[in-house]
């Protein structure tokens, strides 16, 4: 039984991650720039 909720939870986390990335990519199209994501400070 434990296995089942964990499997569902895992897939949920993955789907949420995909959605978040898609949103981020769409937003980056609008506001260009490095976004400071490289750790280089620019």
């Amino acid at each position: 039984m434990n296995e089942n909720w964990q499997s569902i939870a895992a897939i949920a986390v993955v789907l949420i991650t995909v959605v978040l990335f898609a949103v981020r990519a769409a937003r980056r199209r609008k506001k260009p720039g490095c976004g400071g994501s490289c750790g280089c400070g620019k």
Partner: protein
Amino acid sequence: MSNVASDIPLIAIVGNPNSGKTTLFNLLTGLKQKVANYPGVTVEKKIGECYSQHGKKLRLIDLPGAYSLNARSPDEAVLRDVLLGRRPETPRPDRVVCVVDSANLERNLYLVSQVLELGLPAILVLNMVDVAEKREWRIDAAKLSELLGIPVIKTQAVTGRGLIELKLALSRDDLPATKWRSAVIPDGVRTALEQSRGPLCETGAIHAKASLLEPLYLLSGHDPTHYGIEDSQMGRVHELRRSIDGAFPGWEDELVSARYRSIEELCAEVLRRPDQEIETITTKLDRIFLHPVLGFVNLVFVFALLGYLIFSVAAAPMDWIDGWFGQLGAWVESLMPPGDLRDLIVNGVISGVGGVVIFLPQIVILFLFIGLMEDTGYMSRLAFIMDWLMSKVGLNGKSFLPFLSSYACAVPGVMAARTIESPKDRLVTILIAPLASCSARLPVYTLLIGLLFPAKPLTQGLLMMGLYALGTGAAFVFAWIFSKGIMKGDSSPMILEMPPYKRPSLKSILLLVWQRAKAFLVRAGSIILGISILIWAASTYPKTDTEDKSLQLANSFAGQAGHFIEPVIKPLGYDWKIGIGLIGSFAAREVFNTTLGVVYAVESGDDDNLDPLREKLAAERRADGRPVFTPLVCLSLLVFYVFAMQCISTIAIVRRETGTWKWPLVQLGYMTGTAYVLSLLIYQVGSALGY
């Protein structure tokens, strides 16, 4: 950021590069500063807070260093635009603090004269008084204050001298604007500028209430980014510029001379210089550092030192971080029953994120080193030594800074190429920028070099520097090839300032390192985290009903992808698991480590999570029992990573900066092509030789 005028005054800190302005800013604000980006440009926006002597809150904004308000680069454009109030998201400062390098008074006063003309209440800070004193320059601050009509304060930012007086001056409610007028615009030019106000307004460049100075700077500027003016309107602006140039040839240059005449008159009254220039420590040191032979030897030594430090000093903290992540994984495992979510957390997230965070000590050392080189002034000597080499391959010194930035990350490097006026030079710089080994390659290099030469920090350091040298050398070679092959164009000039050597401000450098480290961790915690989850998913789904972990991995999305490209990468010595790593690197190069971390964790299952990745890789065997990561394979992989064009962000930014898909594809082609060929050669020839 709210645009509403608040009763917290906004004070701008302006000055030449190397005037110590940022050190002063850091001193005043300490950790209470926020670093962001100005929208649309890769210019850092630094706002901080400090308290006046009376306990009143003040907001300080550190504007980019510049030599003039006639902007030639995005940095200078931001300075101009913020001071003119043209930036909607940044309110116009209420007051200005002009920071000046006292030992360089005349030149520094040029920008000051422009800034003071804008009419804002101001304070003049004579910084680096110690250097001026060593040169036996005497500046009469009181007289200067009287002539300018604003407070003048002597400081030495590095030691904090003068700080209290500065804070007192900042706290004044009644700060005056200067009464000094440095350059009178000739009537004819003045009229022309006034007439251009209307048309400029129509282009949207300025608004109706702009002062005369806005057309002055927008029409005489050489700003490649032309912020606030749409591309379609630039034609009008160029027209206006040409008409003034036609009516009054050389008016810009005459204005510059006029300003310097006023400055010279001013300095005649407040500055006393000795007849003979005193030899300072700078001139003495430069005899070595800029010596034709010794200088270069020293450069090599400096980089070798950096390489060594990155491996030896970083090793212990890296092991500690590795162990910590391992323990975290073990703890979560003990808490949760077996299942997908636990697997995701332990083998996906912890393994993946840990694989990148472990490099924090190296990043810290790298930026500490860079900060020291910049702060002491050695960086410009580097540019000087490298310039003749760069000009030989058709690059110019202006390419140096974008290229150098690319060692941290190619994305801002490519954007910085905007400062290069010649289209040809700019294109060449953009094309070769990714060959500078960016900081994302560092984890990959470290992992593979560690496999090659375990526990030999000196050798590791040398190989590391060798890889950087390889990338740099290749960049020069390709620059030469491209310069010869692409359109002929004028080379842009290079003008570089070589500031006197100075004692570095440790506080400033540590602050910088802290900001970079924080950005690194935030990236790891967000993007790398997300990618780790996705890679775990790709390595786990679709699920196969089997106990054999290897089979499970082989049947997953990631495994299938790896197998798919395996025929292509086999001649290079790579297997399908490395293939998965290569694919992952298109998101971000350091994801190679993340991917391998996840792939091997997923594979090994519940045990051996404490083994560092390196050991797992070293133990990996092919079907026939031979090790996968032989020294030859490691070398082949390393060379591949030096050259291969990965990283979607870079591709995207090149597309944006060049306006077409042609050039990113060219980059992809020549770089990955070279990577493939070279790795192939290394592996095949090496195998034939029996390695």
